[in-house]
């Protein structure tokens, strides 16, 4: 008999209004344990507000939030004990050392011990600087310390709001690889908000996209980014079709010349096979025909601009949830 897995995090129709501003609107999402989930959205989309509602820093106007099945407004301590959180630009007591800051946090956690502090400082690469005041830390070091603080007490769920801000690319890669390894080896669940699309694309299993307080897309990263069937890159051997050729075919929406022998052709439907036949029948020799690999950035921009158009066109319509780009 299959045992139901308790989701690590559930947001159920969560809304938050600040005066006249609806920052989050009936947001629902569920993160399964043992996954690294990305949380994307443009500035002002409601990402931070959503994340702040989890540790009750912000009180939701409506909805429920559960961490491993425990409602945070019914038993907060029980819910939050399995969570480590770092907010954007983590703040510390600058007149204290890195170690002292961690000691303050560790004191509130049953499981954290001096040995764990040593291990944490070692893992985040601050063991050599632990006795320096945070005042002299760089931004990247403070970010590392923030992650270290979030990892005290061996949480089962990590919520990270822009954890790699201010870090150099090497540091970012190192931190995200470390977190990915924790997910893979220890079954840690991570919910990470970031502007770095390439990192989210590389490291996350699932992604949730929020815009203007609504969840506009969600799903497995690989699924969401499966290659276009509609935008096709064609490399020719010899003669390259001209604009006149493509004008005769209604299915062709746009043609862009990438190099002397490569064109990027946009069709009105997913049908690379038709294009291949059409070119072949016209006598053109195709050396390569490849559906364009979508990046998370392109997907994100397409879904957020689409949502922008839709919400301005029908302001009174009910909010969309779980939508994908029409290119999908």
């Amino acid at each position, binding site marked *: 008999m299959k045992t139901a897995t308790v989701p690590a995090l559930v947001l159920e129709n969560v809304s938050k209004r600040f005066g006249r501003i609806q920052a989050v609107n009936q947001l629902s999402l569920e993160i399964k344990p043992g996954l690294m989930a990305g949380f994307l959205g443009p500035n002002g989309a409601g990402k931070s507000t959503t994340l702040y509602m989890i540790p009750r*820093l*912000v009180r939701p106007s409506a909805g429920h939030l559960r961490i491993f099945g425990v409602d945070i407004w019914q038993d907060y*301590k029980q819910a939050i004990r399995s969570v480590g959180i770092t907010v954007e*630009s983590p703040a510390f007591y600058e007149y*204290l050392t890195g170690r*002292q800051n961690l000691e303050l946090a560790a004191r*509130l956690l049953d499981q954290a011990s001096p040995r764990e502090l040593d291990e944490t400082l070692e893992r985040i690469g601050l063991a050599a600087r632990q006795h320096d005041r945070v005042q002299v830390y760089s931004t990247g070091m403070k970010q590392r310390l923030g992650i270290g603080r979030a990892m005290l007490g061996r949480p089962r769920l990590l919520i990270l709001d822009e954890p790699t801000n201010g870090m150099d690319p090497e540091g970012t890669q190192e931190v995200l690889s470390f977190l990915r390894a924790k997910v893979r080896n220890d079954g840690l669940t991570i919910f990470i908000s970031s502007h770095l699309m390439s990192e989210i694309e590389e490291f996350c299993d699932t992604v949730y996209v929020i815009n203007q307080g609504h969840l506009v897309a969600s799903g497995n990263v690989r699924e969401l980014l499966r290659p276009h069937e509609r935008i096709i890159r064609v490399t020719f051997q010899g003669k390259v079709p001209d604009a006149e050729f493509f004008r005769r075919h209604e299915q062709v929406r746009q043609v862009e010349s990438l190099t002397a022998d490569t064109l990027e052709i946009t069709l009105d439907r997913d049908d690379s096979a038709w294009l291949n036949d059409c070119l072949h029948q016209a006598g053109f020799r195709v050396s390569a025909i490849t559906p364009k690999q979508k990046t998370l950035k392109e997907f994100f921009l397409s879904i957020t601009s689409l949502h922008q158009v839709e919400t301005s066109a029908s302001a009174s319509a009910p909010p969309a949830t779980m939508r994908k780009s029409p290119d999908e």
Partner: protein
Amino acid sequence: MSNQFLPLLRNEITKAARRRLPYFGIFCIGLLCLVIYLAAGRLTNTAATNAWGYLAFSMQLVFTDLGPIFIINFAAMLLAQETGTGTIRAALAAPVHRWELYAAKAAVGLLYMLVLSMAAMLFSAALAKVHYDFSAVGDAFGVVYGRGKALQEFLFGYALSWIPLVALVAFGLFISTLIRTPGTAVSVATGSLLIIDFTKNLVGLGPYIFTKDIGYPWIVLSQFAQGMDCQWQPELRNMLILSGAFTLVAFGAGLIIFVRKDLNH
């Protein structure tokens, strides 16, 4: 999960012990006690003064102005500092209820008040010992109170002096809850204390403002040091009611506001 009040209080003490402002307050109190000592000969009739009288005199001067300012400054920074720097978010993103944190903040404010009060007492007593003795209290006709009785009354009066100071801590913490930046919180707390103190009698509210009782125990002890009876009542009852009510209202209102406010920025 267990009550987090004690670990939080320990954190608050750790933080306060590593800041400079609390020590600056103690230093200033000590400096003021020294200035009072140096100026005492010009301010009082030294022939009528004994160590108890000097002690009451010094404490009254310290807690007329400077003492309350440092107490309220410390209390006004307790939450505003954390909100202003953003450390409040990390403090609360932990298995901690907001009321526990608020209670720990109030407790460390009270502890600082006690430390400042004790520092003033010790400095004043040490300086009093230079010229006087803490012996029996007498008047022109002889001994009125024995040394033991004098000590008992002074310790009692000293403990009573904390009552309006508790209300001051609650007021400072309340200001700290409302205002997000420490500089503004301190300015508002200190400014409002001074304005209230300056204008309360002009507008007829003097009997209803708890700050009138800050120096009261030392006035009674000054009289006691001259051989008069200690008349604590009925002012003591009024002081308890006024300061108690103010403490409850300020603490309660601050707690409710803090528990309900959004801390997203």
